[in-house]
């Protein structure tokens, strides 16, 4: 956790700074993606990088997600450390073969002789009025695949520290950024730091209930925790930060302490990340839970465009607050 007095950066700035620092440190790091150079991506996350590092390291690609992801796999095997940019997480559909059958398996299939140190940065999250093909949170798929590591930062601080770790990792890492969080500000120290994978972060300490939140849902959990506070319920908010490796121990301990748990993840709960976290806690804290672990995720529908419909598909501070109250037997 950063000092309270640290400077503030937006989430986008934190991502950019991580990339810039790593690119300065290591000439092997390069970026590949659509409109990443002069445009700095549609989200403007990469603005300024091409000016510093040139078009040989910040490389605009055609709209060929499979192709340039595949190129990154090969480049990573042969001495570079590419970071690919998949604009919307919905487009990882096009990269599944490259990521799952190639990147994730090369090291294992080659008996440990080849390595694939690459990062895929992509996005998740709804409520941007972008409809069903630009609003999905599909991180559960990659989390299911051995050989990949999956990162879900929820603050500018975490984004920077985890992205630096991702770039230095010797394995393929998928890094999911919440599109709606890019302008969110938070403290980020000016000094160099990294954050290890597999270490959950307790974003708020509490006694009565554990709210496990990932990515976009961490802020929702914190908001709900404030509401709960007023209602006399002390909520702990814990963020696993990486779904793989997963800090099972921290989740289980928090659950044991509070004995009530809600899992919040913006992916679909069904066969999703929330199911895994729920299962881990239900197994690990079995004898300490006072109520079933509850999952809250995207409604199990393609994300609708219409604003009132779309808003109904994601958990909100209010809906979490109510679910938590009910779980604590205080309705």
């Amino acid at each position: 956790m950063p000092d309270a007095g640290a400077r503030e950066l937006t989430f986008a700035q934190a991502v950019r700074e991580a990339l810039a620092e790593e690119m300065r440190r290591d000439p092997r790091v390069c970026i590949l993606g659509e409109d990443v150079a002069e445009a700095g991506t549609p989200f403007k996350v990469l603005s300024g990088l091409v000016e510093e590092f040139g078009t040989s390291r910040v490389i605009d690609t055609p709209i060929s997600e499979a192709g340039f992801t595949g190129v990154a796999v090969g480049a990573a095997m042969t001495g570079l450390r590419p970071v690919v940019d998949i604009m919307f997480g919905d487009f990882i559909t096009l990269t599944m073969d490259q990521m799952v059958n190639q990147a994730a398996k090369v090291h294992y299939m080659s008996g440990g002789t080849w390595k694939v140190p690459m990062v895929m940065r992509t996005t998740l999250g709804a409520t941007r009025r972008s409809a069903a093909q630009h609003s999905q949170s599909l991180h559960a798929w990659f989390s299911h695949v051995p050989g990949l590591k999956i990162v879900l930062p929820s603050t500018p601080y975490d984004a920077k520290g985890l992205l630096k770790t991702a770039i230095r990792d010797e394995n393929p890492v998928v890094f999911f950024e919440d599109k709606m969080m890019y302008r969110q500000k938070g403290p980020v120290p000016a000094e160099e730091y990294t954050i290890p994978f597999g270490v959950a972060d307790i974003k708020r300490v509490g006694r009565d209930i554990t709210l496990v939140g990932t990515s976009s849902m961490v802020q929702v959990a914190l908001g709900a925790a404030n509401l709960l506070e007023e209602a006399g319920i002390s909520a702990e908010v814990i963020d696993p930060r990486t779904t793989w490796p997963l800090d099972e121990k921290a989740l289980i301990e928090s659950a044991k302490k509070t004995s009530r748990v809600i899992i919040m993840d913006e992916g679909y709960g069904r066969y999703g990340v929330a199911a895994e976290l729920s299962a881990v806690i239900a197994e690990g804290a079995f004898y300490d839970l006072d109520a079933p672990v509850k999952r809250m995720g995207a409604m199990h529908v393609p994300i609708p465009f219409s604003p009132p419909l779309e808003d109904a598909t994601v958990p909100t501070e209010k809906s979490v607050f109510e679910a938590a109250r009910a779980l604590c037997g205080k309705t």
Partner: protein
Amino acid sequence: MTTITVNATAGSGIKAEQWVQMYRRMVSIRLFEEQVNELYTRALMPGLAHLYVGEEAVAVGICQALRREDYITSTHRGHGHCLAKGASPDRMFAELLGKEAGYCRGKGGSMHIADPATGNLGANAIVAGSVGIATGAAFSAKHLNNGRVAVCFFGEGALGQGVLYEVMNLAQLWKLPVIYVCENNLYTEYTHFSETTAGDILARGSAFGLQTASVDGQDVRAVYETAKRLIEHSRQGGGPALLLCNTYRYTGHHVGDINREYYRSKQEEQSWKSERDPIKRLANWLIEQKLSDSNLLAAIDAEVRSEMEKAVEFAISAPYPDVKEAEENVYA
């Protein structure tokens, strides 16, 4: 609808009314998009939209060569295709605003308008996302022997997606009645096509054995004539074709893309608008050929404008779907 009549028939085999109809359609698209931009700047439209302004001749010329029951698939920049195939602006605006009266009950929005009544299989927000669907529609047409064809619209950015080549190969092997229409408006989002497209576009079709043609996409007559020829050839069993339409989008990639000078010059934009505007070009020709006159055309413009205004009003005052609609239509 318009009651304006024309006096003569055009040279190129089709009735003068049809040219005037194409004029009206192009104007409809232009004014529809003006309203969309307006809705955006007035913060009445949720999200973004990708305007078709400047490219009207492509959708209109090609759809004019289609029958109502023929299929089209469209893209994120889909309003033009949708209107050209015959959809009505009121339900389109309603969709853009997420209203229940929209073509998709508000669930699709700008990038997903679909309309079975006009054979519109849907816009698609995945670049090249509908090339399979269009080819599949042609597959059905051939299988069911119903004489239909499918037109697959896509931007030149879709040339980057491998699935396009997969389906061109399939379409040629199976001699499917599908026309792949590449709208090369020179840019993907913010990147010039020369940076994303090696080699030669038409050669990418002919390598798979497709008929190919390229056409000035700002000339609706050329688009229509070329499309007609390819479509009928394909309808008769001649197999698939690739039609390259060279065109230009006048405005940003989407309504929020205002400062564009880092990727293209104002001068370039200006020269396309002033020298090659498809609507002006058809108007001039209609007048020259005495198939219409400027008063009649101005009357069409006015009529369309008022139609669009009414359609927007309809959409603004239409209700949102009930929240529980969110859980409906997941399964048929």
